[in-house]
């Protein structure tokens, strides 16, 4: 499909098709609805919570292995746990900001820029 890009008529066709689609397409009734409601809200909350937990686990594991390796138990684990928590909060903040900007972001978690 994309190999035919050098054909001007096809390129034009795609543009016209896109324009017609935009003009005539009715608003998708399902768009964004999956992210709403109780189960959708729960899924979002779980996603944010998981973000926090995952970074914390990474901090814990990394600190543990560094301690084992350098023999500095328990100090590096504590420091890494702190950084892990911070990273978790940062991740949770990023996800929730994305969800707030666009409630449908649960379905389309893309952040184009």
């Amino acid at each position, binding site marked *: 499909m994309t190999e035919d890009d050098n054909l001007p008529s096809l390129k034009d066709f795609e543009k016209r098709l896109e324009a017609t689609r935009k003009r005539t397409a009715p608003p998708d009734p399902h768009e964004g609805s999956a992210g709403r409601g109780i*189960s959708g809200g729960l899924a979002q909350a779980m996603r944010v919570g998981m973000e926090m937990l995952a970074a914390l686990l990474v901090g814990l594991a990394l600190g543990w292995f560094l301690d084992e390796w350098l023999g500095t138990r328990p100090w590096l684990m504590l420091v890494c746990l702190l950084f892990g928590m911070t990273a978790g909060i940062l991740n949770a903040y990023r996800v929730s900001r994305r969800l707030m900007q666009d409630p449908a972001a649960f379905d389309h978690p893309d952040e184009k820029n």
Partner: protein
Amino acid sequence: MTVAHAAGSPLEQFKITRLVEMEVGGLDVSFTNSAVWMVVVIVAISVSLLFAMRKGSMVPGRGQSVAELSYEFVANMVRDNVGSAGRAYFPFIFSLFMFILFANILGLIPYAFTVTSHIIVTFAMAITVFLGVTVIGLIKHRMRFFTLFLPKGIPMVIAPFLVIIELFSYLARPITLSLRLFANMMAGHTLLKVFGGFVVALGFLGIGPFVFIIALYGLELMVAFLQAYVFAILTCLYLNDALHLHH
């Protein structure tokens, strides 16, 4: 107690059983029920796609429409999230998406084994994506890849802390990626089995939980698709980060 036994433990469905015992260099590489279902998934994908596309007619029939739709769906996802640079990685993402989708959906068949309900399987896929994306980023940008961890316009005083925090948040990616898919599949299947146990235990009154299970099956079908989609789209986003170096 006896009734609970009759219905089986809700966690029994996740049990791995060795079907063909094998050992290579002290490593247990037995052919398990999990492996059987992975093979089933791959055969199902290959057969359904090849069968649907056998004619390759200009005006697609039902099967061909489904095959083309799934192709277009992933192709659009890659194009929207990664851009034209992502075209080279389309086969990988398509395979990943189809594998997870089929594993999730085939796992919903009663007595089937859900491959993606094991953390080690999802983690293996997530770590492959993570390492692959990191290596791609390193090859494309060499040392400039590490600017991914340093947001622009940060005072030098707090920069070291931020780099560490960004590094941790980067390292958390495979964990969240695998945990999300695993937790969703495991929770859904456990819930189905628990309510299945209720149906058996309640006898005639079991019609209540039975109706609930039907609704839950619909939800699980959606979750099966949604999780495959989320896994694929997050792979696209990570790939985009590595190729274009921006947050």
